[in-house]
């Protein structure tokens, strides 16, 4: 059977993990070399005990400007998602219709939208929605995918055959088409409906990667040795296979996080994602383009668009940096 193409049938709207192999490595290494190694800490001291993949990765990440910038941005996003009132004192749902489409005014730096809501407040509260959808979907996808895929890879047999056919079927549905069909049929949609949908269509991607990682870890000599020494299934999985198979899952999941945020926004833009009163950047951009209202009030389009793009960028940059740090082939 012919090998699959690199990128292994990427689900629509999601980047094939292999897409930019080497991505920001060069950015990192070209600038990283000029950095002085930090005083003391875990620099490569001669005679030091060899570092694990994880401390090695952490060592790389701390010196990667891409990671630092995206990390700070994400930290900020998480903080304002948890406590939006820290920087926005108004209520995103209390609007004054007589202020519809008004430009920026003192105390309302981003102006007002069609409904007369404060754009700044809505942009701040939109972060909570996006971060919640991104983080929860990724956790769900990673958990479901790695458990199902990992078990299939470990035990093989009919369970593996069944799972492989099932992932084939799910890969046959481009995720955006599936979203349009599935979500439009559900009456009212909350953040959790969208998360559930993403997990439903997203898990096969991680399952394939986890399955492959477990199969290749299983064939290592030390795992065979542990088996020969009488280790049980549980011990084999938890002590020997899991630590060696988890890196590719983490890499794929981190990159996927950014794309899930973009996916939610796109679905909301198409009108099959989140509904009011949930504040969503995608839905706000859709409102702004309704009948090209941005023609006279570009601020209602530009601010949510900038916030969304910056958020997705931060997570994709993080994923890129994590991949470079964890991929041993790039060492």
């Amino acid at each position, binding site marked *: 059977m012919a090998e699959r*193409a690199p990128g292994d049938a990427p689900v629509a709207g999601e980047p094939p993990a292999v897409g930019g192999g080497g991505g920001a490595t060069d950015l990192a290494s*070209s600038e990283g070399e000029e950095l002085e190694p930090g005083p003391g800490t875990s620099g490569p001291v001669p005679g030091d005990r060899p570092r694990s993949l994880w401390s090695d990765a952490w060592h790389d990440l701390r010196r990667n400007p891409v990671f630092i910038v995206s990390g700070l941005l994400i930290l900020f996003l998480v903080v304002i998602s948890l406590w939006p009132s820290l920087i926005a004192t108004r209520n995103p749902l209390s609007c004054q219709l007589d202020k519809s489409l008004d430009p920026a005014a003192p105390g309302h730096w981003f102006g007002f939208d069609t409904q007369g809501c404060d754009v700044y407040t809505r942009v701040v509260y939109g972060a909570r929605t996006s971060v919640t959808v991104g983080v929860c979907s990724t956790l769900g996808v990673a958990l479901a995918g790695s458990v199902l895929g990992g078990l299939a890879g470990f035990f093989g047999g009919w369970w593996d055959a069944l799972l492989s056919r099932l992932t084939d079927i799910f890969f046959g549905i481009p995720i955006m088409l599936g979203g349009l069909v599935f979500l*439009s049929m559900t009456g009212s949609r909350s953040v959790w409906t969208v998360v559930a949908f993403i997990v439903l269509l997203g898990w096969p991607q991680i399952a394939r990667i986890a399955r492959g990682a477990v199969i290749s870890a299983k064939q290592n000599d030390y795992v065979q040795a542990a088996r020969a020494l009488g280790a049980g299934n549980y011990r084999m999985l938890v002590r020997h296979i899991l630590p060696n198979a988890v890196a590719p899952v983490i890499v794929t999941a981190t990159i996927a996080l950014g794309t899930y945020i973009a996916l939610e926004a796109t679905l909301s833009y198409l009108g099959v994602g989140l509904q009011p009163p949930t504040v969503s950047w995608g839905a706000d951009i859709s409102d702004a383009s309704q009948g*090209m209202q941005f023609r006279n009030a570009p601020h209602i389009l530009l601010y949510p668009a900038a916030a969304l*793009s910056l958020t997705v960028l931060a997570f*994709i940059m993080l994923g890129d940096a994590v991949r470079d740090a964890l991929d041993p082939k790039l060492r």
Partner: protein
Amino acid sequence: MPVGRYVIRRLLQMIPVFIGTTFLIFVMVYAVGDPVNAMFGDRAPDPATAAQLRAEFNLDKPVWQQYLLYMGHIFTGDFGNAFNGQPVTELMGTAFPITLRLAVIAIVFEVIVGIVLGVVTGLRRGRPVDSSVLMLTLVVISVPTFVTGTLAQYLLGVKWGWIQPAVSPEAPADELILPGLVLALLSLAYVTRLTRTSIAENSRADYVRTALAKGLPRSRVTVRHLLRNSLIPVVTFLGTDVGNLMAGALVTERIFNIQGVGFQLWQGIVRQNSPTVVGFVTILVIVFLLANLFVDLLYAVLDPRIRYA
């Protein structure tokens, strides 16, 4: 080499996937939503009329029976009628050529711009050109297509007035250039990155050094030796990219009011016109599966290291 047997086996493997995928979509549309109620909007339908409609569209039978009936019709080329009586095939006949035109424009952009950028950066790994193009691709990947499209429409169509902000119903090719570029951007970034990685890896290969040592000019080595071998992953990416293009077309067609497949599909969903939705999605899934099959075959032909077994 038994290429024929391999093709047949792959086609056979596609059958259960096709059945599973279409059934999943069918169940979602017909079991979760109620198309007859949707036809009447907010008013409650007259029970007799509703029953008659249900019988006419086979909606009174169990889902698996509806599915079999529907699939039987499809294989005779009958996609049924939309709820307003227009045959779905008629809608497809006008919508598909438009989307095809849009997709071809997008693919031309992807191939030409993506490969040129990829070669330029791949040959200058680590230089400023390389770093800035890489960062740029990361930004392009991060900005969702609907944002790029809306911004392009605002800036070029409304603010500066370079183009018509909406495409006319016939959608001639020259009006589709900007929407095509918007549709292409995401994949263009991937093609750039893929070509770059591939070129950078292969430029250190022995055969390149040999060709240069023989005294061939660098440009000839790049085009005839290096590029030919580096494009294999790119060609296969373009095949799997069909799914991305479909998702992008949904968004792009809505923004620029292009009456293609994405537009019709979206209309079908907004109006809960199930025959249209299932018909279009079924065709798109077939296209997607065939594209993936084609890629597998092409990959095996282009890269002789891969054997049919």
